[in-house]
């Protein structure tokens, strides 16, 4: 009889479910792909149903259901903080208590009724342990230092672990309210972006700025001689205010925040803005750059400490901050570890995977399994069903079958912007050739078009390239330590100077790109597509961005794909071997 373990994350953001069968990942999916609500926090009932269906089992067949947090320990932290920050916490206390007394304190009951498992089958993993397990057990490393950096879990906001075989041993932690993740989120909010969503935009914006607020940032995020850090709790208010992460002191230090939706017109891309608008945008870019550099410095500082403390030549990273691809690039290039591994769903979604893997290895005492080599762990819709849906909604399409990658390569070389939906959807936030928008990487005009009328997003945001494995070194300077993260588009690296002119659409203003190195074995169809484009254009590189519209999660099914296709300026949609032409 096989043993089934279902890992669950949720109730904060990015709810997800992951199913293990005898320790092997059978399916992994985020609830947002089913509910179509970006960062959906609800208990991942639909994602779990998908996992069970994939394995062909019922809830009653589950041996264990593992939640990614210890809810009562988190409640203890919330209550203690409310007391410690009295009377400033007067607004947040009623809100928090309302949420906890209404639902979260009764999680055991909610889980048993939502997922149909017996109460004695429920396990609870600690938040940072879930993150650590998600990185370490998926990695190819028998021995590694594991560093988790996020907003907050129960108490820890940063934690260091020693991983050896199937044992994860805690080494040290930095506790709430001192948090690098929340520091970055506070700056994100100051720059007029939504928290948990706009952090990528800050990264993109940073490249337009100069680090002239760096000293201020170093006062806000202080590094200590013991390898740790603390934050300035007089400037930040996330520990006592329900909605504002910073006090008026932040504005006093950095100047007025950016109003949401304000056009961004820094000196490198002024457009037709007035001098005062350019100055305001430039100041915001400088804040972004300063915060990004301070975050990178803090992470390098933590990594150095990890190297001194845990004897291992490999470093595994997880937690939302590990999705900061620019920082990952620097850790790979400048850090002391020979190998870097980052969990592709490093945020809270990945906690579901970690919780399940922890139960399998640490609680049930099973040895390590094979490392994670692909992110194609999500839902797939068969070709027959795809054809039926396409026909029923009145799409004009043709069946190209195995010729689709070749045909897509030809379309791309002809300057078309296409959407590519193939096989099982990706685990994690990055589109890696299963649910991607693809374009010729040579033209800056294409980049502007994709930003403006395909994705409807801010013009300053860069696009990532996908490159065939054998050709990566010709175009990008990828440090040896970043070999693994690059397969999952988790590191930003310099574009070689001689290639920057050619790869205009994917080279950011600072000469870098968040590269995906495509492995033919792990992604054969996507590699074929790249090969098709290479045959037509001589270039084994494509612009690759996630196939979603602004404010929506990655498309999942052919219906989602058709709806996104119909609402954007994409030229062609390829879905499971069918080419769909625009419906005019």
């Amino acid at each position, binding site marked *: 009889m096989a043993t089934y373990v279902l890992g669950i994350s949720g109730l904060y953001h990015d709810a997800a479910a992951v199913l293990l069968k005898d320790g092997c990942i059978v399916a992994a999916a985020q609830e947002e792909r089913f509910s179509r609500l970006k960062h959906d926090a609800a208990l991942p009932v639909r994602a779990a149903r998908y996992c069970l269906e994939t394995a062909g089992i019922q809830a009653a067949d589950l041996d264990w259901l593992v939640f990614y947090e210890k809810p009562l320990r988190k409640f203890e932290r919330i209550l203690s903080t409310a007391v410690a920050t009295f009377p400033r916490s007067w607004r947040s206390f*009623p809100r928090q208590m309302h949420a906890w007394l209404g639902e979260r304190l009764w999680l055991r009951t909610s889980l048993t009724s939502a997922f149909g498992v017996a109460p004695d089958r429920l396990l609870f993993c600690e938040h940072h342990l879930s993150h650590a397990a998600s990185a370490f057990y998926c990695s190819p490393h028998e021995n590694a230092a594991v560093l988790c950096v996020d907003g907050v879990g129960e108490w820890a906001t940063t934690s260091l672990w020693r991983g050896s075989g199937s044992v994860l041993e805690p080494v040290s932690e930095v506790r709430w309210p001192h948090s690098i993740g929340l520091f970055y989120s506070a700056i994100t909010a100051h720059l007029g972006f939504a928290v948990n969503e706009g952090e990528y935009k800050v990264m993109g914006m940073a490249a337009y700025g100069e680090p002239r607020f760096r000293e201020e940032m170093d006062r806000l995020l202080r590094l200590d001689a013991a390898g740790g850090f603390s934050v300035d709790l007089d400037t930040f208010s996330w520990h006592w205010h329900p909605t504002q992460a910073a006090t008026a002191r932040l504005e006093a230090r950095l100047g007025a925040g950016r109003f*949401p*939706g304000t056009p961004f017109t820094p000196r490198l891309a002024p457009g037709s803005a007035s001098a005062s608008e350019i100055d305001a945008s430039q100041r915001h870019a400088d804040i972004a750059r300063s915060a990004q550099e301070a975050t990178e410095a803090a992470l390098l500082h933590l990594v150095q400490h990890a190297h001194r403390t845990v004897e291992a030549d490999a470093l595994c990273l997880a937690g939302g901050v590990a999705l900061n691809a620019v920082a990952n690039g620097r850790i790979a290039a400048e850090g002391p570890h020979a190998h870097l591994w980052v969990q592709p769903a490093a945020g809270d979604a990945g906690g579901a995977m970690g919780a399940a893997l922890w139960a399998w290895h640490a609680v049930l005492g099973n040895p390590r399994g094979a490392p994670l080599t692909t992110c194609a762990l999500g839902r797939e819709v068969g070709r027959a069903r795809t054809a039926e849906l396409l026909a*029923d909604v009145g799409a004009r399409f043709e069946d190209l079958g195995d010729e689709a990658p070749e045909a897509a390569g030809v379309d791309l070389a002809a300057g078309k912007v296409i959407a590519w939906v193939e096989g099982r959807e990706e685990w994690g936030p990055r589109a890696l050739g299963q649910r991607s928008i693809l374009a010729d990487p040579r033209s800056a005009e294409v980049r502007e078009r994709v930003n403006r009328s395909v994705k409807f997003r801010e013009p300053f945001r860069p696009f990532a390239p996908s490159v065939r494995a054998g050709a990566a070194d010709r175009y990008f300077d990828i440090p040896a330590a970043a070999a693994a993260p690059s397969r999952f588009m988790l590191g930003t690296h310099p574009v070689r100077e001689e290639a920057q002119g050619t790869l205009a659409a994917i080279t950011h203003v600072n000469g870098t790109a968040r590269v995906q190195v495509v492995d033919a074995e792990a992604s054969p169809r996507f590699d074929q597509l790249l090969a098709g484009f290479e045959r037509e254009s001589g270039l084994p590189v494509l612009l690759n961005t996630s196939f979603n519209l602004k*404010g929506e999660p990655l498309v999942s099914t052919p219906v989602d794909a058709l709806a996104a296709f119909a609402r954007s300026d994409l030229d062609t949609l390829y879905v499971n071997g069918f080419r769909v032409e625009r419906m005019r």
Partner: protein
Amino acid sequence: MGLVRRAWLTVASEVAWRIPGRPQRLLAAFALAERGSMLDMLSAVEHTERRELRRRYFRHALDEARHATLFAGRVRALGGVGRAEAALEDSGQLVDAGIVGGQTLFERLGEEEFLSFVYVAEADAVEQFEVYLRRRLPDPETCATLARILKDELFHVSYSRTEVERAAAAGRPMALSMAKHRWRRVWQGWLRFTRDFGARMGGLWLGVAYLTVVAPFRLFARLEPGGWQLPERGGSTLDAARRES
């Protein structure tokens, strides 16, 4: 019902549209509702067993998406840039407003009930928009947007009515179903009101508890210092794993 509702809509619109800042909020709420409706219609495309309806559901979904953008555009034009972005992008707002839940409408209601719900909701929207257009509220540009949207809504009413009539002709109790949906909308409005009221009252009592129960413990509580600390871990035994703390 129709006369009373029209009278209520007329009075309510005269008041609501003229309160400063209110048009922005109302239009953002419309955008949010249209976005939620798009999700329901796409779910119907996925789940329907009547393949001949897929194209209509799909067109309907695209209409709703376009309407959401149009409404958000008006919010933006009236100065509510942040509100417009939130209406189009913030998933939390859809959940908080009760527009989406654990299941889509189609999953919850099934095909016929879903169609009768669509008919009731769309017919109500048409009535509502016609009142606004008659009163020329809140401003000429928004009225032009409403007029554009109304054309689509009339199509939605038309196809859903055809389906409802077809089901009724086949002996299904569609009149009852529609009446149920109308009353459910009223009931849900009441539930929303009581829930908000309950939350406010709960907040009040929790505020009192904060001042009386929490306050004395302030003397003993401290925030954690920064820097690395030794971890407190519960271990990885089965017993420890079963604990929520």
